[in-house]
């Protein structure tokens, strides 16, 4: 999600630098207020930790693909929102200067898209309220997954907004967002799971290290990470299978808008709709020619499996791209070795 310099205009870059600078100034004030001289060295080492830990490939079960740790949620869960935000700025600066991951001009955008959402929103709006009644493994898993998904969605949407505002691409706003958001939904889910696993380990070993920890939290939680995962999987199937029965037959927001403009909720004419009806596996979320509840349940579960299949497909595609990319890096390394 790191934006390159070529994707922003000076005006957008300047505006985002200003926004990030305000957040940084406020964070510095907060860190100073805490009067903890130890925090700066800890932030430095933790920045290096996040950078190094993001190099570890965690295998995603059933896909053969791999994911990485989510830096924003991890830092804010350990250091708190303000110190976490400042630490992530350092990490982004190192990534930009050393590995050309993001640009110097677009750094303001990247700080906002990743550090601000990841630390401020992740810690203050998700982690802190969820841990109010005490830290448990279940809450850590839920906060990590929700935090990573939400902050990555916000970040991806900001990338679309910033690129569109810069008039860099002729890609329509809706099409660009439709590509960016689902991809980052998957990434967020995987990063959330990995972050949850690490934070649960920290909670078990040294609970006092976590942000918002209390003395009474220093006992083992109710759920293990595996149990939480099974619970989440079952919840997805129940949501897809049973709750789809309660799906509204009224038009949703988008259909309502289209109906207002075109006079019908399904523009495109009868011929187009007829073709769609014929080729759709489960038209209108039920078996063809059936209005039964069973059909709806099956279609819900089929939807969950289809999305899971799509996720796996996209993961494999990313794995292929990553393989190709690292093959190039390997080739470069071999060339360098040969030349030296």
């Amino acid at each position: 999600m790191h934006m390159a310099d070529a994707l922003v205009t000076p005006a957008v870059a300047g505006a985002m630098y200003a926004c990030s600078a305000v957040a940084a100034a406020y964070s510095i004030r907060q860190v100073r207020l805490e009067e903890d001289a130890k925090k700066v060295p800890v932030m430095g080492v933790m920045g290096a930790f996040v950078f190094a830990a993001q190099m570890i490939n965690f295998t995603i079960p059933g896909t053969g693909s791999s994911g990485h740790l989510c830096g924003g949620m991890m830092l804010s869960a350990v250091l708190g929102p303000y110190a976490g935000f400042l630490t992530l700025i350092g990490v982004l600066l190192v990534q930009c200067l050393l590995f050309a991951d993001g640009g110097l001009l677009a750094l303001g955008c990247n700080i906002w898209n990743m550090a601000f959402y990841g630390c401020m929103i992740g810690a203050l709006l998700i982690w802190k309220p969820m841990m109010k009644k005490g830290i448990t493994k279940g809450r850590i898993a839920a906060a990590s997954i929700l935090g990573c998904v939400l902050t990555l969605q916000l970040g991806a949407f900001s990338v679309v907004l910033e690129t569109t505002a810069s008039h860099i691409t002729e890609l329509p706003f809706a099409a660009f967002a439709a590509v960016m958001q689902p991809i980052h939904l998957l990434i967020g889910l995987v990063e959330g799971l990995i972050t949850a696993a690490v934070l649960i380990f920290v909670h078990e070993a040294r609970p006092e290290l976590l942000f918002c920890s209390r003395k009474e939290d220093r006992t083992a939680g109710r759920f293990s990470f595996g149990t939480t995962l099974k619970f989440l999987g079952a919840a997805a199937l129940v949501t897809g299978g049973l709750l789809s029965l309660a799906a509204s037959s009224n038009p949703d927001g988008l259909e309502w808008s289209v109906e207002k403009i075109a006079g019908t909720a399904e523009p495109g004419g009868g011929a187009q709709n007829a073709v769609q009806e014929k080729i759709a596996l489960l038209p209108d979320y039920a078996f063809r020619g059936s209005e039964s509840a069973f059909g709806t349940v099956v279609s819900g579960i089929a939807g969950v499996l289809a999305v899971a299949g799509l996720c796996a497909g996209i993961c494999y595609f990313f794995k292929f791209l990553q393989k190709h990319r690292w093959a190039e890096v390997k080739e470069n390394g071999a060339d360098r070795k040969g030349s030296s």
Partner: protein
Amino acid sequence: MGQTGKAVHEVHRLEQLAARDQWVNRIHPLVKFFLTVGYLAVTVSFPAYDLAGTAGMAVYPLALLILADLSFRDTGKRLRLVLPFVLLIGLGNLFFDRNLVQIGGFTIRAGVVSMAVLFVKGTLCVLASYLLIATTSMEKLCYAFGILHFPKAVITQFLLTWRYLTLLLEEVNRMTDAYALRAPGQKGIRMKAWGSLAGQLLLRSMDRADGVYESMLLRGYRGDYAYIRETAPLRGRDAAWLLFWGALFVLFRRFPVLYLAGAGIGGLLS
């Protein structure tokens, strides 16, 4: 060499490049920082279809590459990791920008031109940032940030991140190597070990941070970290370098220098 090994190698390579006693390396870090930011701002400000104007900006990285005696091959390889995303965004122009433009008697889609401009901009921006870091050490860059009154806490934290980066990368390298030896033929870290592997590293990092803090206290740390001992004054040649390139950037942005040069050479030949 694994992914982390390559990252460590890259950090060491850049440190060695920045530590060389080249003429460009000796220019004041503040001047180089200002020039890089100015260059980036001017380069990305060119209109979407001004290919000649944008290409003209290549003069700065080209000159610096030659003056700093940097390998064109190594520099080019660095671009391979960045440009795919820029090109992906540029592809949108190819399909959605259906206007037509005339170039040298040929009519082509404007989307092709705007995609090429985006590609050139992306290349030049990556080059400019690389040239800054390949000719300026991180300590000197932080010294420049200090002159600009960047918050001390952020500079100190950034420098410590930089200092401990290779150390932790090497630790990750050892851990993943040890894991791979115990799990032959397995790619990545299995789900069962997700938490314990990275969690152990986190706990060790926190303990290391405690040790670092105590060592810093023993050496007189009171919230102010002396990252550079020599304070380099701004000399005349630094100011001249800044003014020369600053003027050139303005010239290339305001006038079609490449067209004028081409017309001039054409006039001389005829």
